[in-house]
Protein backbone atom coordinates (compact mmCIF):
# COMPACT_ATOMS: atom_id res chain seq x y z
CA UNK A 1 0.00 0.00 0.00
CA UNK A 2 1.72 3.17 -1.15
CA UNK A 3 -0.17 5.91 0.57
CA UNK A 4 0.92 9.43 1.18
CA UNK A 5 1.55 9.97 4.84
CA UNK A 6 1.67 13.76 4.69
CA UNK A 7 -0.78 16.17 3.16
CA UNK A 8 1.80 18.94 3.07
CA UNK A 9 4.49 18.19 0.53
CA UNK A 10 8.24 18.56 0.70
CA UNK A 11 9.09 16.67 3.85
CA UNK A 12 11.71 14.46 2.21
CA UNK A 13 13.18 17.33 0.22
CA UNK A 14 13.40 19.82 3.06
CA UNK A 15 14.67 17.36 5.65
CA UNK A 16 17.11 15.83 3.19
CA UNK A 17 18.48 19.22 2.23
CA UNK A 18 18.73 20.22 5.89
CA UNK A 19 20.69 17.11 6.79
CA UNK A 20 23.05 17.31 3.81
CA UNK A 21 23.79 21.01 4.30
CA UNK A 22 24.20 20.57 8.05
CA UNK A 23 26.59 17.67 7.54
CA UNK A 24 28.69 19.43 4.92
CA UNK A 25 29.00 22.79 6.64
CA UNK A 26 28.97 21.87 10.32
CA UNK A 27 29.19 18.21 11.25
CA UNK A 28 31.94 16.97 8.93
CA UNK A 29 34.35 19.85 9.56
CA UNK A 30 33.62 19.74 13.29
CA UNK A 31 34.27 16.02 13.41
CA UNK A 32 37.73 16.79 12.01
CA UNK A 33 38.66 18.30 15.38
CA UNK A 34 37.79 15.13 17.23
CA UNK A 35 39.34 12.79 14.68
CA UNK A 36 42.52 14.83 14.77
CA UNK A 37 42.62 14.56 18.55
CA UNK A 38 42.08 10.83 18.32
CA UNK A 39 45.49 10.53 16.66
CA UNK A 40 47.07 11.79 19.88
CA UNK A 41 47.89 9.61 22.83
CA UNK A 42 46.43 10.71 26.12
CA UNK A 43 49.92 11.61 27.29
CA UNK A 44 50.51 13.88 24.25
CA UNK A 45 47.14 15.50 24.74
CA UNK A 46 47.89 16.10 28.39
CA UNK A 47 51.32 17.52 27.63
CA UNK A 48 49.81 20.11 25.31
CA UNK A 49 47.09 21.34 27.59
CA UNK A 50 49.08 21.19 30.81
CA UNK A 51 51.86 23.38 29.46
CA UNK A 52 52.04 26.35 31.85
CA UNK A 53 51.32 28.93 29.17
CA UNK A 54 48.23 27.01 27.98
CA UNK A 55 47.01 26.46 31.52
CA UNK A 56 47.37 30.15 32.25
CA UNK A 57 45.32 30.98 29.17
CA UNK A 58 42.57 28.56 30.26
CA UNK A 59 42.48 30.11 33.70
CA UNK A 60 42.19 33.57 32.21
CA UNK A 61 39.56 32.63 29.59
CA UNK A 62 37.27 30.72 31.92
CA UNK A 63 37.88 32.93 34.95
CA UNK A 64 37.29 36.19 33.13
CA UNK A 65 34.27 34.73 31.31
CA UNK A 66 32.69 33.62 34.60
CA UNK A 67 33.36 36.95 36.26
CA UNK A 68 32.08 38.90 33.27
CA UNK A 69 28.92 36.80 33.11
CA UNK A 70 28.35 37.34 36.84
CA UNK A 71 28.79 41.11 36.53
CA UNK A 72 26.45 41.09 33.53
CA UNK A 73 23.88 39.09 35.50
CA UNK A 74 23.75 41.85 38.11
CA UNK A 75 23.85 44.89 35.84
CA UNK A 76 21.87 43.22 33.07
CA UNK A 77 19.07 42.50 35.52
CA UNK A 78 19.13 46.11 36.70
CA UNK A 79 19.09 47.43 33.15
CA UNK A 80 16.24 45.14 32.14
CA UNK A 81 14.36 46.21 35.26
CA UNK A 82 14.78 49.89 34.43
CA UNK A 83 13.71 49.40 30.81
CA UNK A 84 10.59 47.47 31.77
CA UNK A 85 9.54 49.28 34.91
CA UNK A 86 10.62 52.90 34.64
CA UNK A 87 9.93 55.74 32.28
CA UNK A 88 12.91 57.88 31.37
CA UNK A 89 14.25 59.98 28.55
CA UNK A 90 15.78 57.98 25.71
CA UNK A 91 14.41 54.66 26.89
CA UNK A 92 13.47 53.43 23.40
CA UNK A 93 16.93 54.26 22.10
CA UNK A 94 18.61 52.48 24.97
CA UNK A 95 16.35 49.48 24.49
CA UNK A 96 17.45 49.29 20.86
CA UNK A 97 21.14 49.90 21.61
CA UNK A 98 21.33 47.07 24.13
CA UNK A 99 21.78 44.78 21.14
CA UNK A 100 24.80 46.71 19.91
CA UNK A 101 27.29 43.98 20.90
CA UNK A 102 25.32 41.55 18.69
CA UNK A 103 25.50 43.88 15.73
CA UNK A 104 28.88 45.57 16.13
CA UNK A 105 31.72 43.53 14.62
CA UNK A 106 33.96 42.30 17.41
CA UNK A 107 37.11 43.82 15.93
CA UNK A 108 35.48 47.25 16.00
CA UNK A 109 34.44 46.76 19.61
CA UNK A 110 37.97 45.63 20.38
CA UNK A 111 39.77 48.69 19.04
CA UNK A 112 37.14 51.06 20.43
CA UNK A 113 37.48 49.62 23.95
CA UNK A 114 41.26 49.73 23.65
CA UNK A 115 41.16 53.39 22.61
CA UNK A 116 38.93 54.16 25.61
CA UNK A 117 40.90 52.28 28.24
CA UNK A 118 44.47 52.84 27.01
CA UNK A 119 46.45 55.03 29.39
CA UNK A 120 45.90 58.02 27.07
CA UNK A 121 42.25 57.18 26.35
CA UNK A 122 39.11 58.89 27.67
CA UNK A 123 38.66 56.48 30.55
CA UNK A 124 42.22 55.21 30.84
CA UNK A 125 43.57 58.71 31.44
CA UNK A 126 41.14 59.12 34.33
CA UNK A 127 42.28 55.85 35.88
CA UNK A 128 46.02 56.27 35.27
CA UNK A 129 46.60 58.75 38.11
CA UNK A 130 45.14 56.18 40.50
CA UNK A 131 47.55 53.59 39.16
CA UNK A 132 44.76 51.50 37.65
CA UNK A 133 45.63 49.92 34.35
CA UNK A 134 42.86 48.31 32.31
CA UNK A 135 44.08 48.01 28.75
CA UNK A 136 46.81 45.41 28.16
CA UNK A 137 46.04 43.63 31.46
CA UNK A 138 43.61 40.85 32.44
CA UNK A 139 41.25 43.63 33.51
CA UNK A 140 41.03 44.65 29.86
CA UNK A 141 39.95 41.11 28.96
CA UNK A 142 37.20 41.40 31.55
CA UNK A 143 35.99 44.72 30.12
CA UNK A 144 35.74 43.27 26.61
CA UNK A 145 33.87 40.20 27.86
CA UNK A 146 31.41 42.36 29.78
CA UNK A 147 30.71 44.31 26.60
CA UNK A 148 30.12 41.17 24.57
CA UNK A 149 27.85 39.44 27.10
CA UNK A 150 25.53 42.18 28.32
CA UNK A 151 22.68 41.73 25.80
CA UNK A 152 22.38 38.02 26.55
CA UNK A 153 21.30 38.71 30.11
CA UNK A 154 19.09 41.70 29.31
CA UNK A 155 17.31 39.95 26.43
CA UNK A 156 16.55 36.76 28.34
CA UNK A 157 15.35 38.51 31.50
CA UNK A 158 13.39 41.32 29.83
CA UNK A 159 10.53 39.27 28.30
CA UNK A 160 9.98 37.36 31.54
CA UNK A 161 9.87 40.62 33.45
CA UNK A 162 7.37 42.04 30.96
CA UNK A 163 5.11 39.00 31.23
CA UNK A 164 5.22 38.82 34.99
CA UNK A 165 1.86 39.39 36.58
CA UNK A 166 1.77 42.36 38.93
CA UNK A 167 -0.81 40.46 40.96
CA UNK A 168 2.02 38.48 42.51
CA UNK A 169 3.62 41.59 43.89
CA UNK A 170 0.28 43.01 44.94
CA UNK A 171 -0.50 39.79 46.77
CA UNK A 172 2.86 39.91 48.52
CA UNK A 173 2.30 43.52 49.51
CA UNK A 174 -1.18 42.76 50.79
CA UNK A 175 0.34 40.05 52.97
CA UNK A 176 2.58 42.64 54.52
CA UNK A 177 5.84 42.09 52.68
CA UNK A 178 8.31 44.92 52.36
CA UNK A 179 9.30 45.87 48.82
CA UNK A 180 12.71 44.27 49.31
CA UNK A 181 11.15 41.07 50.68
CA UNK A 182 8.82 40.94 47.69
CA UNK A 183 11.77 41.26 45.37
CA UNK A 184 13.83 38.70 47.23
CA UNK A 185 11.09 36.07 47.71
CA UNK A 186 8.69 36.65 44.82
CA UNK A 187 10.31 38.44 41.89
CA UNK A 188 13.81 37.02 41.98
CA UNK A 189 12.71 33.34 42.11
CA UNK A 190 10.47 33.96 39.09
CA UNK A 191 13.34 35.51 37.19
CA UNK A 192 15.98 33.03 38.34
CA UNK A 193 15.74 30.54 35.45
CA UNK A 194 15.94 33.31 32.85
CA UNK A 195 18.76 34.96 34.72
CA UNK A 196 20.65 31.69 34.85
CA UNK A 197 20.08 31.12 31.13
CA UNK A 198 21.31 34.63 30.35
CA UNK A 199 24.33 34.03 32.53
CA UNK A 200 25.07 30.76 30.73
CA UNK A 201 24.72 32.32 27.30
CA UNK A 202 26.94 35.27 28.22
CA UNK A 203 29.49 32.87 29.66
CA UNK A 204 29.48 30.57 26.61
CA UNK A 205 29.97 33.51 24.30
CA UNK A 206 32.71 35.02 26.44
CA UNK A 207 34.79 31.83 26.66
CA UNK A 208 35.20 31.63 22.89
CA UNK A 209 35.39 35.36 22.25
CA UNK A 210 38.38 36.48 20.24
CA UNK A 211 37.95 39.66 18.20
CA UNK A 212 37.04 42.10 20.91
CA UNK A 213 39.60 40.73 23.36
CA UNK A 214 42.90 40.49 21.49
CA UNK A 215 43.26 44.24 20.96
CA UNK A 216 42.71 45.23 24.56
CA UNK A 217 44.39 42.21 26.18
CA UNK A 218 47.98 43.02 25.32
CA UNK A 219 48.48 39.26 24.88
CA UNK A 220 51.35 38.83 27.29
CA UNK A 221 52.23 35.14 27.75
CA UNK A 222 51.19 33.80 31.16
CA UNK A 223 49.36 37.04 31.98
CA UNK A 224 46.85 38.20 29.43
CA UNK A 225 46.72 35.52 26.75
CA UNK A 226 43.29 33.97 26.16
CA UNK A 227 42.76 30.36 25.10
CA UNK A 228 41.48 31.12 21.57
CA UNK A 229 44.68 33.11 21.01
CA UNK A 230 46.70 30.05 22.05
CA UNK A 231 45.00 28.13 19.24
CA UNK A 232 46.00 30.80 16.76
CA UNK A 233 49.55 30.87 18.10
CA UNK A 234 49.87 27.11 17.66
CA UNK A 235 48.42 27.35 14.15
CA UNK A 236 50.94 30.01 13.20
CA UNK A 237 53.69 27.60 14.29
CA UNK A 238 52.01 24.93 12.11
CA UNK A 239 51.38 22.92 15.29
CA UNK A 240 47.99 21.65 14.16
CA UNK A 241 47.91 18.93 16.79
CA UNK A 242 48.56 21.38 19.59
CA UNK A 243 45.88 23.75 18.29
CA UNK A 244 43.39 20.91 18.02
CA UNK A 245 44.10 19.65 21.52
CA UNK A 246 43.46 23.08 23.01
CA UNK A 247 40.28 23.42 20.96
CA UNK A 248 38.96 20.08 22.15
CA UNK A 249 39.79 20.89 25.76
CA UNK A 250 37.92 24.20 25.43
CA UNK A 251 34.90 22.54 23.85
CA UNK A 252 34.79 19.84 26.52
CA UNK A 253 35.13 22.22 29.45
CA UNK A 254 32.47 24.62 28.21
CA UNK A 255 30.08 21.80 27.34
CA UNK A 256 30.57 20.33 30.81
CA UNK A 257 29.96 23.67 32.49
CA UNK A 258 26.88 24.36 30.41
CA UNK A 259 25.57 20.88 31.06
CA UNK A 260 25.97 21.56 34.76
CA UNK A 261 24.04 24.80 34.41
CA UNK A 262 21.31 23.04 32.43
CA UNK A 263 21.06 20.37 35.12
CA UNK A 264 20.93 23.03 37.79
CA UNK A 265 18.12 24.68 35.92
CA UNK A 266 16.23 21.42 35.51
CA UNK A 267 16.68 20.71 39.18
CA UNK A 268 15.54 24.22 39.99
CA UNK A 269 12.38 23.70 37.94
CA UNK A 270 11.68 20.34 39.53
CA UNK A 271 12.04 21.80 42.99
CA UNK A 272 9.31 24.27 42.15
CA UNK A 273 6.79 21.70 41.05
Amino acid at each position, binding site marked *: MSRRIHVLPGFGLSLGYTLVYLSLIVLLPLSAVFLKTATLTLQQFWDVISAPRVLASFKLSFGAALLAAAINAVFGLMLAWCIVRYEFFGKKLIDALVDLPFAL*PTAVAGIALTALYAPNGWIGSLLAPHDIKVAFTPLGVLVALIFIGLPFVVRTVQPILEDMETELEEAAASLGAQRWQTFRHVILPTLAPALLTGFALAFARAVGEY*GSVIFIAGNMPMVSEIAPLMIITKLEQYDYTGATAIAVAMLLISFALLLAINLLQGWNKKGKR
Partner: protein
Amino acid sequence: MSAAAASLPVHVPVRTHRDYQASPATREASWVRWTLLALSLGFFALFLLLPLVAVFAEALRKGWGVYFAALVEPDAVASIKLTLLAAVIAVPLNLVFGIAAAWAIAKFEFRGKQFLITLIDLPFSVSPVIAGLIYVLVFGAQGWFGPWLQEHDVKILFAVPGIVLATIFVTFPFVARELIPLMEAQGREEEEAAIVLGASGWQAFWRVTLPNVKWGLLYGVILCNARAMGEFGAVSVVSGHIRGLTNTLPLHVEILYNEYNFAAAFAVASLLALLALVTLALKTYIESRQEYVA
Protein backbone atom coordinates in the same frame (compact mmCIF):
# COMPACT_ATOMS: atom_id res chain seq x y z
CA MET B 1 22.88 21.64 25.47
CA SER B 2 20.14 24.09 24.75
CA ALA B 3 21.65 26.84 26.82
CA ALA B 4 24.87 26.69 24.88
CA ALA B 5 22.98 26.69 21.68
CA ALA B 6 20.85 29.76 21.89
CA SER B 7 22.73 32.86 21.02
CA LEU B 8 20.19 35.49 20.14
CA PRO B 9 17.13 35.23 22.31
CA VAL B 10 14.21 36.49 20.29
CA HIS B 11 13.36 39.82 21.76
CA VAL B 12 9.69 40.42 22.31
CA PRO B 13 9.26 44.16 22.40
CA VAL B 14 7.63 46.01 25.27
CA ARG B 15 3.91 45.51 24.84
CA THR B 16 1.02 47.27 26.39
CA HIS B 17 2.62 49.38 28.98
CA ARG B 18 1.60 48.83 32.55
CA ASP B 19 1.90 51.66 34.96
CA TYR B 20 4.06 50.09 37.59
CA GLN B 21 4.42 53.37 39.44
CA ALA B 22 0.69 53.70 40.08
CA SER B 23 0.40 51.02 42.72
CA PRO B 24 2.42 51.05 45.91
CA ALA B 25 2.72 47.28 45.55
CA THR B 26 4.80 47.52 42.38
CA ARG B 27 6.66 50.72 43.17
CA GLU B 28 9.97 51.26 44.90
CA ALA B 29 11.00 54.13 47.07
CA SER B 30 12.19 56.92 44.84
CA TRP B 31 15.76 56.79 46.13
CA VAL B 32 15.86 53.12 45.13
CA ARG B 33 14.50 53.99 41.72
CA TRP B 34 17.03 56.73 41.16
CA THR B 35 19.91 54.58 42.37
CA LEU B 36 18.92 51.73 40.05
CA LEU B 37 18.51 54.09 37.12
CA ALA B 38 21.82 55.81 37.78
CA LEU B 39 23.69 52.53 38.15
CA SER B 40 22.27 50.80 35.11
CA LEU B 41 22.39 53.82 32.84
CA GLY B 42 25.94 54.54 34.01
CA PHE B 43 26.87 50.95 33.24
CA PHE B 44 25.16 51.21 29.86
CA ALA B 45 26.98 54.45 28.99
CA LEU B 46 30.34 53.16 30.13
CA PHE B 47 30.25 49.80 28.38
CA LEU B 48 28.03 50.32 25.36
CA LEU B 49 27.60 53.97 24.50
CA LEU B 50 31.16 55.21 24.97
CA PRO B 51 32.78 52.58 22.72
CA LEU B 52 30.32 53.46 19.97
CA VAL B 53 31.03 57.17 20.32
CA ALA B 54 34.76 56.47 20.48
CA VAL B 55 34.71 54.78 17.08
CA PHE B 56 33.39 57.86 15.36
CA ALA B 57 35.44 60.31 17.43
CA GLU B 58 38.68 58.47 16.66
CA ALA B 59 37.72 58.09 13.01
CA LEU B 60 37.33 61.83 12.57
CA ARG B 61 40.18 62.89 14.82
CA LYS B 62 42.37 63.86 11.88
CA GLY B 63 39.55 65.40 9.89
CA TRP B 64 37.30 64.38 7.03
CA GLY B 65 40.09 64.36 4.48
CA VAL B 66 42.01 61.59 6.20
CA TYR B 67 38.73 59.82 6.88
CA PHE B 68 37.67 59.59 3.26
CA ALA B 69 41.20 58.88 2.06
CA ALA B 70 41.19 55.78 4.27
CA LEU B 71 37.94 54.58 2.73
CA VAL B 72 38.83 54.97 -0.94
CA GLU B 73 42.32 53.57 -0.64
CA PRO B 74 42.56 50.46 -2.94
CA ASP B 75 43.14 47.91 -0.17
CA ALA B 76 40.13 49.26 1.71
CA VAL B 77 37.97 49.07 -1.40
CA ALA B 78 39.16 45.50 -2.03
CA SER B 79 38.26 44.53 1.53
CA ILE B 80 34.82 46.09 1.17
CA LYS B 81 34.26 44.09 -2.00
CA LEU B 82 35.38 40.85 -0.38
CA THR B 83 33.15 41.43 2.65
CA LEU B 84 30.17 42.07 0.40
CA LEU B 85 30.99 38.98 -1.66
CA ALA B 86 31.16 36.74 1.41
CA ALA B 87 27.84 38.08 2.69
CA VAL B 88 26.16 37.82 -0.72
CA ILE B 89 27.06 34.13 -0.86
CA ALA B 90 26.62 33.19 2.81
CA VAL B 91 23.33 34.93 3.54
CA PRO B 92 21.24 33.45 0.67
CA LEU B 93 22.65 29.97 1.31
CA ASN B 94 21.76 30.14 4.98
CA LEU B 95 18.41 31.66 4.09
CA VAL B 96 17.48 28.72 1.87
CA PHE B 97 18.76 26.33 4.52
CA GLY B 98 16.81 28.12 7.24
CA ILE B 99 13.57 27.88 5.29
CA ALA B 100 14.10 24.20 4.46
CA ALA B 101 14.99 23.33 8.04
CA ALA B 102 12.06 25.27 9.48
CA TRP B 103 9.65 23.68 7.02
CA ALA B 104 10.77 20.16 7.92
CA ILE B 105 10.92 20.81 11.66
CA ALA B 106 7.81 22.95 12.12
CA LYS B 107 5.39 21.25 9.75
CA PHE B 108 6.19 17.56 10.28
CA GLU B 109 6.68 15.14 13.12
CA PHE B 110 9.73 12.93 13.16
CA ARG B 111 12.07 11.25 15.56
CA GLY B 112 15.16 13.13 16.73
CA LYS B 113 13.70 16.55 15.99
CA GLN B 114 14.98 18.11 19.19
CA PHE B 115 18.44 16.69 18.55
CA LEU B 116 18.42 18.18 15.07
CA ILE B 117 17.56 21.62 16.48
CA THR B 118 20.48 21.31 18.89
CA LEU B 119 22.82 20.44 16.03
CA ILE B 120 21.62 23.42 14.02
CA ASP B 121 22.44 25.68 16.96
CA LEU B 122 25.89 24.16 17.34
CA PRO B 123 27.86 26.86 15.46
CA PHE B 124 26.71 29.42 18.04
CA SER B 125 28.38 27.54 20.86
CA VAL B 126 31.69 27.06 19.07
CA SER B 127 34.39 29.69 19.42
CA PRO B 128 34.94 31.55 16.12
CA VAL B 129 38.60 30.57 16.29
CA ILE B 130 37.64 26.90 16.48
CA ALA B 131 35.26 27.48 13.56
CA GLY B 132 38.27 28.63 11.56
CA LEU B 133 40.42 25.81 12.84
CA ILE B 134 38.08 23.09 11.60
CA TYR B 135 38.44 24.31 8.03
CA VAL B 136 42.21 24.40 8.42
CA LEU B 137 42.05 20.77 9.52
CA VAL B 138 39.91 19.82 6.53
CA PHE B 139 41.48 21.88 3.75
CA GLY B 140 44.94 22.78 5.14
CA ALA B 141 48.19 21.41 3.75
CA GLN B 142 48.19 18.71 6.46
CA GLY B 143 44.41 18.36 6.35
CA TRP B 144 42.08 15.74 4.89
CA PHE B 145 41.82 17.23 1.42
CA GLY B 146 45.03 19.27 1.53
CA PRO B 147 47.20 17.03 -0.65
CA TRP B 148 44.43 16.46 -3.18
CA LEU B 149 43.69 20.18 -3.42
CA GLN B 150 47.36 20.98 -3.88
CA GLU B 151 47.67 18.40 -6.64
CA HIS B 152 44.76 19.92 -8.51
CA ASP B 153 45.83 23.48 -7.76
CA VAL B 154 42.60 24.39 -5.98
CA LYS B 155 42.97 26.98 -3.27
CA ILE B 156 40.40 27.01 -0.49
CA LEU B 157 42.38 27.94 2.58
CA PHE B 158 43.98 31.39 2.61
CA ALA B 159 41.72 32.23 -0.33
CA VAL B 160 38.20 33.46 -0.93
CA PRO B 161 36.44 30.05 -0.71
CA GLY B 162 37.80 29.50 2.80
CA ILE B 163 36.57 32.91 3.91
CA VAL B 164 33.14 32.22 2.47
CA LEU B 165 32.98 28.81 4.14
CA ALA B 166 33.97 30.20 7.55
CA THR B 167 31.37 32.95 7.14
CA ILE B 168 28.69 30.41 6.29
CA PHE B 169 29.61 28.39 9.38
CA VAL B 170 29.38 31.23 11.89
CA THR B 171 26.11 32.56 10.44
CA PHE B 172 24.64 29.11 9.89
CA PRO B 173 21.82 29.10 12.51
CA PHE B 174 20.56 32.71 12.26
CA VAL B 175 17.65 32.33 9.84
CA ALA B 176 16.70 28.81 10.96
CA ARG B 177 16.44 29.72 14.63
CA GLU B 178 14.20 32.71 13.87
CA LEU B 179 11.90 30.69 11.64
CA ILE B 180 11.59 27.41 13.56
CA PRO B 181 9.76 28.74 16.64
CA LEU B 182 7.69 31.11 14.52
CA MET B 183 6.50 28.42 12.12
CA GLU B 184 5.96 25.94 14.95
CA ALA B 185 3.72 28.45 16.71
CA GLN B 186 1.70 29.00 13.54
CA GLY B 187 1.00 25.30 13.12
CA ARG B 188 0.00 23.78 9.81
CA GLU B 189 -3.75 24.44 9.70
CA GLU B 190 -3.45 27.37 7.32
CA GLU B 191 -1.36 25.34 4.88
CA GLU B 192 -3.85 22.48 5.17
CA ALA B 193 -6.68 24.90 4.48
CA ALA B 194 -4.85 26.12 1.38
CA ILE B 195 -4.36 22.56 0.13
CA VAL B 196 -8.02 21.65 0.74
CA LEU B 197 -8.93 24.70 -1.33
CA GLY B 198 -6.91 23.27 -4.19
CA ALA B 199 -3.54 24.97 -3.78
CA SER B 200 -0.42 23.07 -4.76
CA GLY B 201 2.42 22.68 -2.26
CA TRP B 202 4.32 25.59 -3.79
CA GLN B 203 1.22 27.76 -3.86
CA ALA B 204 0.58 27.01 -0.19
CA PHE B 205 4.20 27.90 0.58
CA TRP B 206 4.38 31.12 -1.44
CA ARG B 207 0.88 32.39 -0.72
CA VAL B 208 0.40 31.31 2.90
CA THR B 209 3.59 30.23 4.67
CA LEU B 210 5.98 32.88 3.38
CA PRO B 211 3.72 35.93 3.92
CA ASN B 212 3.08 34.71 7.45
CA VAL B 213 6.76 34.55 8.38
CA LYS B 214 8.14 37.39 6.27
CA TRP B 215 9.02 39.65 9.20
CA GLY B 216 10.72 36.86 11.11
CA LEU B 217 12.55 35.93 7.94
CA LEU B 218 13.77 39.47 7.41
CA TYR B 219 14.82 39.65 11.05
CA GLY B 220 16.93 36.53 10.66
CA VAL B 221 18.44 37.75 7.39
CA ILE B 222 19.43 41.09 8.89
CA LEU B 223 21.16 39.52 11.88
CA CYS B 224 22.77 36.91 9.63
CA ASN B 225 24.07 39.66 7.37
CA ALA B 226 25.45 41.73 10.24
CA ARG B 227 27.39 38.77 11.54
CA ALA B 228 28.54 37.74 8.05
CA MET B 229 30.00 41.17 7.37
CA GLY B 230 31.47 41.59 10.82
CA GLU B 231 32.95 38.16 11.53
CA PHE B 232 36.55 38.38 12.67
CA GLY B 233 37.90 35.35 14.51
CA ALA B 234 36.90 32.56 12.12
CA VAL B 235 37.77 34.53 9.02
CA SER B 236 41.08 35.59 10.56
CA VAL B 237 42.16 31.97 10.91
CA VAL B 238 41.40 30.95 7.33
CA SER B 239 42.26 34.20 5.54
CA GLY B 240 46.03 34.31 5.44
CA HIS B 241 45.81 38.11 5.59
CA ILE B 242 46.89 38.83 2.06
CA ARG B 243 46.31 42.52 1.49
CA GLY B 244 43.96 43.39 -1.29
CA LEU B 245 43.15 39.72 -1.80
CA THR B 246 41.94 37.91 1.31
CA ASN B 247 41.27 40.77 3.69
CA THR B 248 37.73 41.43 4.73
CA LEU B 249 36.73 44.74 6.32
CA PRO B 250 37.27 43.59 9.92
CA LEU B 251 40.65 42.10 9.01
CA HIS B 252 41.60 45.32 7.26
CA VAL B 253 40.76 47.18 10.45
CA GLU B 254 43.11 44.89 12.35
CA ILE B 255 45.99 45.39 9.94
CA LEU B 256 45.67 49.17 9.94
CA TYR B 257 45.44 49.16 13.72
CA ASN B 258 48.51 46.97 14.14
CA GLU B 259 50.41 49.35 11.87
CA TYR B 260 49.49 52.16 14.27
CA ASN B 261 47.47 53.79 11.50
CA PHE B 262 44.72 54.51 14.01
CA ALA B 263 42.83 57.17 12.08
CA ALA B 264 42.45 54.87 9.07
CA ALA B 265 41.62 51.87 11.24
CA PHE B 266 38.81 53.75 12.94
CA ALA B 267 37.61 55.22 9.68
CA VAL B 268 37.13 51.72 8.27
CA ALA B 269 35.73 50.59 11.61
CA SER B 270 33.18 53.40 11.49
CA LEU B 271 31.77 51.87 8.31
CA LEU B 272 31.15 48.66 10.22
CA ALA B 273 29.70 50.61 13.14
CA LEU B 274 27.31 52.31 10.74
CA LEU B 275 26.32 48.89 9.46
CA ALA B 276 25.62 47.88 13.07
CA LEU B 277 23.46 50.96 13.64
CA VAL B 278 21.49 50.34 10.45
CA THR B 279 21.04 46.73 11.56
CA LEU B 280 19.71 47.82 14.95
CA ALA B 281 17.37 50.37 13.36
CA LEU B 282 15.94 47.77 10.97
CA LYS B 283 15.67 45.28 13.80
CA THR B 284 13.74 47.73 15.94
CA TYR B 285 11.48 48.57 13.02
CA ILE B 286 10.75 44.89 12.37
CA GLU B 287 10.00 44.28 16.03
CA SER B 288 7.47 47.09 15.98
CA ARG B 289 5.91 45.59 12.85
CA GLN B 290 5.74 42.16 14.43
CA GLU B 291 4.08 43.68 17.42
CA TYR B 292 1.58 45.37 15.13
CA VAL B 293 0.81 42.20 13.22
CA ALA B 294 0.41 40.15 16.37
